[in-house]
């Protein structure tokens, strides 16, 4: 440089170098802090996102609209074939509807015979997916409902078809859903029929792995997978998907939820089950004490 021999620029460059090193150390320090005290930094991150992402919402609308328009445009050429397909399907559905109505009738009759008490319905809050960041570290989405809407950490999020993920990270107005495909996601499931307990663990692919089955031979591709409710985080019996086998022979889960079109999610509020306290007691006749004692005193006299 032309004025490299001057003293002032040299001094400036030296201080600049020091500042660069300091900033680097600061950044590394933040990383180490994150590694040590994860929850605090994550809550800071959540607060930042809570603050900024909703304010970008107005930019989202036209873009979402445009992308939806584009995808609609693509589907126009397939419309005729789709129409035919739908008509055929409708025909088939009518048959099913008939069957379902009959089944419902039988069901109602049997219920009446049985005097069944149904479990209290799950209540839910519906939120809109603001954005989803498919970073390699987290497969997650942001919802526009948060703590003031009654969302809590750990609640299950479903779309109309099946389980999508779990709330992890909460702001006042936003919350983050960790998808089942995320590398940190582990959900206890049960495979029906056969009632095999297992664990669905995400590995950043579209089809998470099914692991820790007791007896693999009982599980076949196409079996339906539900949450088992073990561990008490999720309610039981939410549809998750069906079993599939990948080319390596490992069991994977074909998700029931439509991950390509996550627009609205339901967050299921937890309704705590009535706990069963203590083991069963001896069953005995409940006689008044004085009546029970009277024969004991009379016995020796006879």
């Amino acid at each position, binding site marked *: 440089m032309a004025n490299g021999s001057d003293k002032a620029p040299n001094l400036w460059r030296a201080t600049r170098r020091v500042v660069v090193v300091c900033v680097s150390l600061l950044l590394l320090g933040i990383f180490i802090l994150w590694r040590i005290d994860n929850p605090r930094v994550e809550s800071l991150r959540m607060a930042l996102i809570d603050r900024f992402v909703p304010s970008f919402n107005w930019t989202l609308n036209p873009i979402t609209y445009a*992308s939806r328009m584009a995808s609609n445009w693509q589907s126009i050429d397939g419309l005729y074939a789709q129409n035919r397909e739908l008509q055929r399907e409708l025909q088939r559905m009518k048959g099913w509807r008939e069957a379902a109505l009959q089944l419902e009738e039988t069901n109602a009759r049997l219920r009446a015979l049985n005097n069944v008490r149904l479990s209290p319905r799950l209540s839910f809050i519906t939120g809109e997916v603001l*954005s989803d*960041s498919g970073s390699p570290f987290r497969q997650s989405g942001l919802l526009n409902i948060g703590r003031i809407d009654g969302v809590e950490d750990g609640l299950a999020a479903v779309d109309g078809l099946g389980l999508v993920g779990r709330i992890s990270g909460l702001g006042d107005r936003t919350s983050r859903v960790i998808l089942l495909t995320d590398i940190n996601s582990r959900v206890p499931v049960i495979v029906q029929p056969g009632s095999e307990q297992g664990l669905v663990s995400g590995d950043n692919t579209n089809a998470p792995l099914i692991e820790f089955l007791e007896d693999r031979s009982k599980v076949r591709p196409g079996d339906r997978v539900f949450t088992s409710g073990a561990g008490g985080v999720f309610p039981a019996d939410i549809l998750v998907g069906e079993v599939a086998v990948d080319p390596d022979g490992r069991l994977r889960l074909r998700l029931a939820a439509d991950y390509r079109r996550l627009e609205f999610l339901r967050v299921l509020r937890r309704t705590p089950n009535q706990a069963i306290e203590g083991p069963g007691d001896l069953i005995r006749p409940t006689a008044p004490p004085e009546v029970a004692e009277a024969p004991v005193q009379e016995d020796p006299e006879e």
Partner: protein
Amino acid sequence: MTDTSGMMLWGGRALYAVLALVCIYLPLLPVDPGLRGVVLPDLFFLLSAAWVIRRPDTAPFWLIAIMAFIGDMMLNRPPGLWAFCLLAATEAIRMRAFDQHERMFLQEWIAATLVFGAALAVFHLILFVTLVPVPSNGWTMRLFLVTVISYPIAVLVLHWVVRIRFPEPAKRGRSFGAMS
């Protein structure tokens, strides 16, 4: 420094900041979540690298650090680490920036490739050492390839659309003086 050039300097910095925010914001958009398999190039690195080679004065290191840190927070990366790697990478590029414009584009491209590869390697090494779950190697390779391939596109966009070019020979001395 005269008033107009001061305005130009801060204007350039503001432009860089806005573009950096756009780069951070683009991957957040729910354009088509079905495209999860597709790896986007690291837009922020492309922007910063191409910019630092051309106009080191309007992309000062502190601005790069702040923007990269915001990106880390927004995109759910481990906070601070990728920002650190990016800062080191752009500093490495900046050191070569003095004589860079005398050379061919191919050399600039190779330099950016090497620096990006090194940054990714350091990033992964630190993640590995601190036992953070690391994205799969296939993903990283794809990110590397996609980013390297799209570098010329980023340079073209910067050159023709945003009009960030090498300073003309007459102005060079002054702009580099302002930078260092």
